[in-house]
């Protein structure tokens, strides 16, 4: 719970900071805190991915982009009451919706009983792989992982098409 409150404070800091370098560093701290929260929630694979991807690659790419553009943010031109009202209104509606959700951490909510329990029960018989997340990712839901690799591939070639400089030989 303390971690979650720290997350909220870091996000408030990101909103108010004007120097973009500070925003990037605070974003990296936010990713690290998010990885810690995921560890507490028993999601070890996801925590490792969020830590390496969010606090690692994202920060490097943001710093690279900052190096190629400007470092501070300009003065706000329009007043920010309408976006604030939109954000708070959306938040109030969502809080009203979560009042009826099942409490945190019980074992017989509808999320945890149908397909999830089926995967845990059948996993060792079908594939002798102890890590259930890897076996679901690569075997039971292998098609989704193929789509994900294709998305990374597409992003890679799109960035190469946008930013690569061809050196003229000779």
């Amino acid at each position, binding site marked *: 719970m303390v971690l979650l409150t720290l997350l909220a404070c870091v996000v408030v800091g990101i909103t108010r900071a004007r120097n973009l370098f500070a925003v990037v560093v605070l974003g990296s701290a936010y990713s690290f805190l998010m990885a810690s929260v995921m560890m507490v929630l028993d999601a070890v694979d996801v925590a490792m991915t969020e830590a*390496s991807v969010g606090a690692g690659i994202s920060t490097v790419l943001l710093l690279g*982009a900052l190096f190629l553009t400007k470092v501070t943010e300009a003065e706000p031109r329009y007043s920010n009451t309408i976006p604030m009202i939109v954000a708070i209104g959306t938040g109030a509606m969502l809080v009203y919706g979560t009042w009826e959700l099942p409490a945190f951490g019980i074992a017989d909510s509808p999320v945890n009983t149908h397909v999830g329990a089926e995967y845990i029960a059948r996993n060792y018989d079908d594939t*002798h792989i102890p*890590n259930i997340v*890897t076996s679901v990712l690569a075997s039971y839901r*292998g*098609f989704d992982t193929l789509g994900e*690799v294709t998305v990374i591939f597409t992003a890679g070639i799109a960035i*190469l098409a946008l930013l690569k400089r061809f050196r003229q030989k000779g």
Partner: protein
Amino acid sequence: MRMDVILRVTAKFFIPVTILFGLYVQLHGDFGPGGGFQAGVIIAAAVIFYAIVWGKDAAERVVPQWLVELLVPMGVLIYAGVGIYGIMTGGTYLDYNGLVHSPPTHDEAVHGQHWGVFLVEIGVLVTVTATMIAIFYAFAGRGKE
């Protein structure tokens, strides 16, 4: 530039250890947390660290641009190739049960699953590593004229 020396000595220690750790995470993805994505990002981070400390030209001598551009689609091809090989051995697309012997008994189906997951994770590792390095090279190469 006295700070430069500290950075270089530390990097010389850290980069091989990081690549080793990335290989460990990839190959132990079946038994602990890990798998293709995490390992790909860790190995790409080691190469990016090398490029940050010694300059992009030195990094391009070790991991050249043509190699990176070759490896980016190679991982997707490995993944799709495993799927098509599944069709050739008598199952549906991406069916790992018949990969080693076909038609499989229960133990041979488990053997096929192990091989299938292993090859698929290698495909993911190759594409993720090459894409992250290619993106970094693109961003870093845009700065100078």
